[in-house]
């Protein structure tokens, strides 16, 4: 190499001059995104991802189709796509068609950032799967003013004006679920316990549990934690059993909630399990999650007495007015789709995205700022009972404080029987998400 032949003084001088020249200037804020795209047509202000001539709006969905969360990313994307295919076939939003660009980040934050930069200039709205992945692009979407819908129920999302979360935060869900157990399941004066994952996900559940304890004056018998990589839960279950907990909250993921219920059954311990939304998945009941699959060894134990704060209505639930349309859309636009709570969630998220875009079209402004205004002033959107109704106001806050509570029943479709839709509690209503977000 010839680098050493560069005479040192010359090289040093060049570096000095260059750095002085750079130091003389500095960075400034970009203000280009509102000047370049003001081509108004038909009374609608345009922006990135919007083609006024063809009347199409492109949205992005950075999901996880592979990796650890692929199992839930796939049905969620399928639900999202099915909703928009049906919407477009029915004439779109006031004649506007919506197209989706799907990208697979594999739940890797770095890939998520790369894909975000790849598509951000071509989309009007973004759906983004996962907590750490969405946090990696959060400062960029905030700055860009690109409305982003996370597929995740962290309490922190409710404090950000650019983010458009769907669903009740974990902490509020758990507070409602415990309240339900106390008032409708004879939990007054009974002993409660909690097993939670020792990270932010589990902590959010614990905060709801603690709020409920205080609000309801509950008997807190035992608490146990586990690491997401743990495979043996005997110690945690023994702790609950010894304390005599009649109700045990599981702020866990399916890879832990399954073995916990199984371990308890083999020890002859059968409390009422209170599951945080993601703790439940169809695959806990049958091996492939389908209606007629081989039952798992724990299906019976789960069926005895388990309540789950599911984030969507059970598949095929007749009480949800929007269910019939979703099922017919699934049949038509996602043939072969088996029952999945994540399909329902993706479908409901599509519905919410369409509601935001509809509001922006009504306001005649599809620019970044226009869509952001539509999100902030959306008001209440009913999602046909598929997911809790969403309320967005400029004051921010959680999109919903109501919970969908279902009992696990291996004989029902989706193995869930709805027991309460839109359940609210005093503790859940007053829970301060800002405290959780800090």
């Amino acid at each position: 190499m010839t680098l050493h032949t560069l005479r040192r003084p010359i090289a040093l001088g060049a570096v000095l001059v260059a750095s002085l020249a750079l130091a003389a200037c500095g960075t400034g804020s970009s203000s280009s995104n509102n000047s370049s795209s003001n081509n108004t047509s038909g009374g609608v202000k345009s922006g990135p991802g919007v083609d006024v001539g063809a009347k199409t709006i492109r949205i992005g969905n950075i999901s996880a189709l592979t990796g650890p969360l692929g199992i839930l990313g796939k049905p969620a994307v399928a639900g999202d796509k099915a909703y928009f295919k049906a919407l477009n076939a029915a004439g779109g939003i006031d004649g506007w068609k919506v197209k989706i660009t799907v990208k697979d980040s594999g739940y890797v934050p770095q890939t998520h950032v790369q894909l975000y930069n790849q598509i951000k200039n071509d989309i009007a709205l973004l759906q983004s799967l996962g907590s750490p992945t969405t946090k990696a692009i959060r400062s960029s979407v905030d700055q860009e003013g690109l409305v982003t819908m996370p597929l995740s129920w962290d309490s922190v999302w409710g404090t950000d004006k650019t983010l458009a979360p769907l669903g009740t935060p974990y902490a509020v869900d758990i507070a409602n679920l415990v309240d339900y157990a106390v008032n409708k399941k004879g939990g007054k004066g009974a002993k409660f316990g909690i097993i939670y994952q020792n990270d932010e996900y589990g902590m959010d559940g614990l905060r709801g549990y603690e709020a409920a304890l205080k609000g309801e004056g509950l008997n807190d018998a035992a608490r146990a934690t586990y690491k997401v990589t743990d495979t043996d839960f005997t110690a945690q279950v023994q702790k609950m059993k010894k304390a005599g907990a009649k109700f045990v909250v599981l702020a866990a993921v399916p890879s832990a909630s399954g073995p916990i219920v199984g371990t308890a059954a083999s020890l002859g311990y059968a409390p009422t399990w209170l599951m945080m939304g993601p703790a439940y998945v169809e695959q806990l009941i049958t091996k492939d999650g389908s209606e007629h699959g081989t039952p798992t060894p724990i299906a019976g134990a789960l069926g005895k007495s388990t309540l789950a704060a599911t984030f969507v209505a059970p598949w095929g639930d007749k009480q949800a007015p929007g269910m019939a349309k979703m099922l017919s859309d699934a049949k038509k636009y996602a043939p072969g789709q088996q029952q999945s709570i994540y399909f329902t969630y993706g479908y409901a998220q599509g519905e919410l995205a369409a509601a935001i875009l509809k509001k922006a079209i009504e306001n005649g402004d599809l620019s970044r700022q226009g869509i952001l205004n539509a999100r902030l002033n959306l008001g209440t959107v009913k999602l046909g009972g598929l997911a809790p109704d969403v309320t967005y106001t400029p004051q921010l806050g959680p999109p919903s404080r109501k919970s969908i509570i279902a009992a696990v029943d291996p004989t029902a479709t989706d193995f869930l029987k709805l027991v309460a839709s839109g359940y609210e509690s005093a503790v859940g209503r007053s829970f301060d998400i800002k405290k959780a977000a800090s």
Partner: protein
Amino acid sequence: VKRARLVALAAAAVLLPFGMSGGQLTTATFVLIAAIGAVGLNVLTGYTGQISLGHAFFLAAGAYTAAVLGGNDGVSAIVWIPAAGVVAALCGVIVGPTAVRLRGLYLAIVTIGLVFIGQHILFNVTSLSGGPQGRSIPAVQAGGFDFSPGQVLRLGSITIDHDGLYYYLALALLALSLAYVANLSRTRFGRAMEAVRDGELAAAVMGVHLTKTKLGSFAISSFLAGISGALFASYLSFVQPSQWNLLLSIQYLAAIIVGGIGTVWGPVLGSIFVFALPDLLKSLPFVSESGAGGVPLTDLTSIVYGVLIVVVFIVEPHGLVGLGSRLRVVTTSKEASP
């Protein structure tokens, strides 16, 4: 001729961002940042012959120095970028003594331990890492410069955005590290490193101070890893303890071996191969929309990527750099016989 080639390469690297889309520029920036770390590992493994699987630990040391100094204390990037290197280098010196007693695969195993210790600390010391859910890392800020998203640098009619700023910063630091390592290999210390690699006993007999040489190369290697880790974390803006894992270390080792171990340009070529190829494969025209049936796109790219690594090793054991010199032989022999 060599200097002309170098100038052309530099000019191409400087002009490259203007011909790239946003996604490509992001990938290129990640590659340049990774290359700084790979150049560092090459000093240790390529020149001194010490196999280390602990590179992720030193990258993390740099990243969390940036987090604490830049994030918690609000210190200027002019301080925290070098500080990230220094802290990582100190970690290297602390670990170094084990390297003096161990060699080859034994050292590789011990350095794996580093990765696990590092992750254990990061998962549990919440004030440092934010715990398992991760923490945000500040953008580079120094004087009038702010590399946050949405900030632009205007030079006449040219504007450079957030991604471009990181690209040029990484490019400049990579150029500095390359120049440093290229010169280092020609110094007394550089020759000592190579002597240790080629035969410890022989080197000791010749009067090479083994402890000093190994410690020094650990320090240099970790210093560059720390800088790379700090830039990586800052550009990514949010990091979690779980990502500083063994796989990351292995990727760096793969990068320097694929590129050409113990050569100046090897780590750069290897970083392009290891860190950009998966993304390039994904953007090929005939594999576009994901989510359809069959083999998922991401799986397909991992398979292609794995096969390519195997092919490179079989066909060109000296790495991509070897391919370059082979090409040169072909072209020069043509020139010689008109």
